[in-house]
Protein backbone atom coordinates (compact mmCIF):
# COMPACT_ATOMS: atom_id res chain seq x y z
CA UNK A 1 0.00 0.00 0.00
CA UNK A 2 0.95 3.65 -0.35
CA UNK A 3 2.62 2.87 -3.68
CA UNK A 4 1.25 6.16 -5.01
CA UNK A 5 3.14 8.20 -2.40
CA UNK A 6 6.39 6.43 -3.22
CA UNK A 7 5.97 7.07 -6.94
CA UNK A 8 5.10 10.69 -6.19
CA UNK A 9 8.41 11.08 -4.36
CA UNK A 10 10.47 9.53 -7.15
CA UNK A 11 8.75 11.71 -9.75
CA UNK A 12 9.09 14.85 -7.60
CA UNK A 13 12.78 14.28 -6.86
CA UNK A 14 13.78 13.55 -10.42
CA UNK A 15 11.47 16.23 -11.76
CA UNK A 16 13.09 18.91 -9.63
CA UNK A 17 16.66 17.68 -10.18
CA UNK A 18 16.26 17.54 -13.93
CA UNK A 19 14.51 20.92 -13.95
CA UNK A 20 17.44 22.42 -12.09
CA UNK A 21 19.84 20.91 -14.61
CA UNK A 22 17.69 22.38 -17.34
CA UNK A 23 17.90 25.81 -15.75
CA UNK A 24 21.67 25.60 -15.49
CA UNK A 25 21.84 24.42 -19.09
CA UNK A 26 19.80 27.48 -20.14
CA UNK A 27 22.23 29.72 -18.26
CA UNK A 28 25.08 28.01 -20.03
CA UNK A 29 23.53 28.61 -23.47
CA UNK A 30 22.89 32.23 -22.59
CA UNK A 31 26.47 32.70 -21.46
CA UNK A 32 27.80 31.03 -24.61
CA UNK A 33 25.66 33.19 -26.87
CA UNK A 34 27.02 36.30 -25.17
CA UNK A 35 30.56 35.23 -25.87
CA UNK A 36 29.89 34.63 -29.54
CA UNK A 37 28.60 38.18 -30.06
CA UNK A 38 31.35 40.39 -31.47
Amino acid at each position, binding site marked *: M*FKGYFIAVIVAVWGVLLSYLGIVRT*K*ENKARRKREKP
Partner: protein
Amino acid sequence: MDYFNHKGNVALALVTLALVLTGLWLIIFVAPLIPEQEWAQRIFYYHVPLAWNAFLGYMGVLAFSIAYLVTRKPKWDIYALSAAETGTVFCLLILITGPIWAKPIWGEAWTWEPRLTTTLILFLVYVGYFMIREFGGPYERSSRYAAVLGILAAVDIPLIYFAVDFWAPQVQSHPQRDMSAHSSTVLKIFLFSLFTFTLILINMYKYRVHVATLELKNLEETHV
Protein backbone atom coordinates in the same frame (compact mmCIF):
# COMPACT_ATOMS: atom_id res chain seq x y z
CA MET B 1 27.66 20.82 -23.44
CA ASP B 2 31.38 21.27 -23.22
CA TYR B 3 31.24 20.33 -19.55
CA PHE B 4 31.44 16.82 -20.95
CA ASN B 5 34.58 17.56 -22.94
CA HIS B 6 36.40 16.67 -19.80
CA LYS B 7 36.55 12.88 -19.54
CA GLY B 8 36.49 12.92 -15.75
CA ASN B 9 33.11 14.62 -15.78
CA VAL B 10 31.70 12.06 -18.20
CA ALA B 11 32.97 9.21 -16.05
CA LEU B 12 31.53 10.75 -12.90
CA ALA B 13 28.15 11.27 -14.53
CA LEU B 14 28.01 7.72 -15.88
CA VAL B 15 28.98 6.18 -12.55
CA THR B 16 26.34 8.28 -10.83
CA LEU B 17 23.69 7.26 -13.34
CA ALA B 18 24.59 3.61 -12.80
CA LEU B 19 24.29 4.01 -9.05
CA VAL B 20 20.98 5.80 -9.37
CA LEU B 21 19.48 3.00 -11.45
CA THR B 22 20.95 0.31 -9.19
CA GLY B 23 19.63 2.19 -6.19
CA LEU B 24 16.13 2.30 -7.59
CA TRP B 25 16.28 -1.41 -8.36
CA LEU B 26 17.44 -2.11 -4.79
CA ILE B 27 14.75 0.04 -3.25
CA ILE B 28 11.97 -1.46 -5.36
CA PHE B 29 12.97 -5.13 -5.38
CA VAL B 30 15.38 -5.80 -2.54
CA ALA B 31 14.39 -3.54 0.32
CA PRO B 32 12.21 -5.25 2.90
CA LEU B 33 8.60 -4.15 2.96
CA ILE B 34 7.94 -2.87 6.45
CA PRO B 35 4.54 -3.84 7.84
CA GLU B 36 1.94 -1.06 8.02
CA GLN B 37 4.17 1.48 6.27
CA GLU B 38 5.10 -0.54 3.17
CA TRP B 39 5.85 1.63 0.15
CA ALA B 40 5.65 4.85 2.16
CA GLN B 41 8.56 3.69 4.31
CA ARG B 42 10.71 3.33 1.19
CA ILE B 43 10.52 7.09 0.74
CA PHE B 44 13.08 7.13 3.57
CA TYR B 45 15.78 5.96 1.15
CA TYR B 46 15.41 9.20 -0.78
CA HIS B 47 14.33 11.67 1.90
CA VAL B 48 17.11 11.21 4.45
CA PRO B 49 20.06 11.23 1.99
CA LEU B 50 18.66 14.52 0.67
CA ALA B 51 18.92 15.97 4.19
CA TRP B 52 22.50 14.82 4.77
CA ASN B 53 23.62 16.19 1.44
CA ALA B 54 21.85 19.51 1.79
CA PHE B 55 23.77 19.89 5.03
CA LEU B 56 26.99 18.99 3.21
CA GLY B 57 26.24 21.65 0.63
CA TYR B 58 25.69 24.29 3.30
CA MET B 59 28.92 23.40 5.07
CA GLY B 60 30.56 23.93 1.70
CA VAL B 61 28.95 27.36 1.50
CA LEU B 62 30.45 28.20 4.90
CA ALA B 63 33.96 27.09 3.95
CA PHE B 64 33.92 28.74 0.52
CA SER B 65 32.41 31.96 1.89
CA ILE B 66 35.17 32.28 4.47
CA ALA B 67 37.78 31.53 1.82
CA TYR B 68 36.28 34.19 -0.42
CA LEU B 69 36.25 36.88 2.26
CA VAL B 70 39.82 36.08 3.18
CA THR B 71 41.35 35.71 -0.30
CA ARG B 72 38.84 37.66 -2.45
CA LYS B 73 39.53 35.25 -5.27
CA PRO B 74 36.35 34.88 -7.39
CA LYS B 75 36.70 31.12 -7.69
CA TRP B 76 35.74 30.75 -4.04
CA ASP B 77 32.62 32.80 -4.63
CA ILE B 78 31.75 30.54 -7.56
CA TYR B 79 32.18 27.50 -5.34
CA ALA B 80 30.03 29.10 -2.65
CA LEU B 81 27.25 30.01 -5.10
CA SER B 82 27.23 26.54 -6.62
CA ALA B 83 27.19 24.83 -3.23
CA ALA B 84 24.37 27.13 -2.10
CA GLU B 85 22.26 26.45 -5.18
CA THR B 86 22.67 22.71 -5.11
CA GLY B 87 22.17 22.59 -1.35
CA THR B 88 18.99 24.63 -1.65
CA VAL B 89 17.59 22.42 -4.42
CA PHE B 90 18.08 19.47 -2.05
CA CYS B 91 16.50 21.51 0.74
CA LEU B 92 13.47 22.13 -1.42
CA LEU B 93 13.26 18.41 -2.13
CA ILE B 94 13.31 17.63 1.59
CA LEU B 95 10.37 19.99 2.02
CA ILE B 96 8.51 18.27 -0.82
CA THR B 97 9.25 14.66 0.08
CA GLY B 98 8.82 15.14 3.83
CA PRO B 99 5.09 15.91 3.73
CA ILE B 100 4.53 13.22 1.07
CA TRP B 101 6.11 10.78 3.51
CA ALA B 102 4.29 12.12 6.56
CA LYS B 103 0.82 12.03 5.03
CA PRO B 104 0.41 8.25 4.83
CA ILE B 105 2.37 7.57 8.02
CA TRP B 106 0.99 10.23 10.36
CA GLY B 107 -2.15 11.23 8.51
CA GLU B 108 -1.11 14.89 8.22
CA ALA B 109 1.28 16.34 5.68
CA TRP B 110 2.72 19.09 7.93
CA THR B 111 2.89 19.01 11.72
CA TRP B 112 5.70 21.45 12.53
CA GLU B 113 7.85 18.44 13.28
CA PRO B 114 11.35 19.67 14.32
CA ARG B 115 13.39 18.48 11.36
CA LEU B 116 11.05 19.73 8.67
CA THR B 117 10.60 23.01 10.53
CA THR B 118 14.37 23.45 10.72
CA THR B 119 14.61 22.70 7.01
CA LEU B 120 11.93 25.26 6.24
CA ILE B 121 13.76 27.95 8.20
CA LEU B 122 16.99 27.02 6.44
CA PHE B 123 15.29 27.21 3.07
CA LEU B 124 14.05 30.71 3.85
CA VAL B 125 17.51 31.77 4.99
CA TYR B 126 19.04 30.62 1.73
CA VAL B 127 16.31 32.24 -0.34
CA GLY B 128 17.53 35.42 1.35
CA TYR B 129 21.07 34.50 0.28
CA PHE B 130 19.98 34.43 -3.35
CA MET B 131 18.01 37.64 -2.91
CA ILE B 132 21.06 39.49 -1.71
CA ARG B 133 23.06 38.18 -4.65
CA GLU B 134 20.35 39.43 -6.96
CA PHE B 135 19.75 42.84 -5.37
CA GLY B 136 23.11 43.48 -3.77
CA GLY B 137 24.42 45.69 -6.57
CA PRO B 138 27.68 45.23 -8.44
CA TYR B 139 29.34 41.81 -8.29
CA GLU B 140 32.17 43.02 -6.02
CA ARG B 141 29.63 43.94 -3.39
CA SER B 142 26.89 41.35 -3.81
CA SER B 143 29.40 38.51 -3.67
CA ARG B 144 30.89 39.90 -0.46
CA TYR B 145 27.47 40.34 1.13
CA ALA B 146 26.47 36.83 0.08
CA ALA B 147 29.64 35.47 1.67
CA VAL B 148 28.82 37.19 4.97
CA LEU B 149 25.29 35.85 4.82
CA GLY B 150 26.59 32.40 3.96
CA ILE B 151 28.67 32.47 7.13
CA LEU B 152 25.79 33.81 9.24
CA ALA B 153 23.45 31.16 7.89
CA ALA B 154 25.82 28.28 8.53
CA VAL B 155 26.65 29.49 12.02
CA ASP B 156 22.92 29.74 12.76
CA ILE B 157 22.21 26.14 11.70
CA PRO B 158 23.07 24.41 14.99
CA LEU B 159 21.20 27.09 16.95
CA ILE B 160 18.12 26.70 14.76
CA TYR B 161 18.36 22.93 15.05
CA PHE B 162 18.52 22.88 18.85
CA ALA B 163 15.94 25.58 19.36
CA VAL B 164 13.41 23.93 17.06
CA ASP B 165 14.12 20.47 18.44
CA PHE B 166 13.14 21.50 21.93
CA TRP B 167 10.50 23.95 20.81
CA ALA B 168 7.64 21.51 20.44
CA PRO B 169 8.50 18.23 22.16
CA GLN B 170 4.91 17.12 22.02
CA VAL B 171 4.99 16.92 18.23
CA GLN B 172 5.81 13.43 17.12
CA SER B 173 9.05 12.97 15.31
CA HIS B 174 9.25 12.29 11.66
CA PRO B 175 8.91 8.59 10.84
CA GLN B 176 12.60 8.42 10.02
CA ARG B 177 13.66 8.30 13.65
CA ASP B 178 12.43 4.71 14.08
CA MET B 179 14.57 3.44 11.25
CA SER B 180 17.33 2.19 13.49
CA ALA B 181 15.06 -0.58 14.71
CA HIS B 182 15.03 -2.33 11.37
CA SER B 183 17.26 -4.86 9.62
CA SER B 184 20.77 -4.46 8.24
CA THR B 185 19.46 -4.64 4.67
CA VAL B 186 17.70 -1.37 5.33
CA LEU B 187 20.94 0.13 6.61
CA LYS B 188 22.96 -1.11 3.63
CA ILE B 189 20.51 0.18 1.06
CA PHE B 190 20.30 3.44 2.98
CA LEU B 191 24.07 3.89 2.90
CA PHE B 192 24.12 3.05 -0.81
CA SER B 193 21.46 5.69 -1.43
CA LEU B 194 23.31 8.19 0.75
CA PHE B 195 26.46 7.70 -1.32
CA THR B 196 24.50 7.96 -4.55
CA PHE B 197 22.92 11.27 -3.56
CA THR B 198 26.30 12.62 -2.53
CA LEU B 199 27.51 11.87 -6.04
CA ILE B 200 24.41 13.52 -7.50
CA LEU B 201 25.20 16.60 -5.42
CA ILE B 202 28.80 16.62 -6.62
CA ASN B 203 27.78 16.26 -10.26
CA MET B 204 25.30 19.13 -10.01
CA TYR B 205 27.85 21.21 -8.13
CA LYS B 206 30.57 20.66 -10.72
CA TYR B 207 28.30 21.49 -13.61
CA ARG B 208 27.13 24.66 -11.86
CA VAL B 209 30.73 25.67 -11.19
CA HIS B 210 31.52 25.15 -14.88
CA VAL B 211 28.64 27.38 -15.96
CA ALA B 212 29.24 30.00 -13.26
CA THR B 213 32.88 30.28 -14.31
CA LEU B 214 31.69 31.02 -17.83
CA GLU B 215 29.22 33.63 -16.54
CA LEU B 216 31.89 35.30 -14.47
CA LYS B 217 34.26 35.43 -17.42
CA ASN B 218 31.56 37.26 -19.41
CA LEU B 219 31.09 39.69 -16.55
CA GLU B 220 34.78 40.39 -16.19
CA GLU B 221 35.25 40.89 -19.91
CA THR B 222 32.41 43.39 -20.20
CA HIS B 223 33.97 45.43 -17.43
CA VAL B 224 37.42 45.67 -18.93
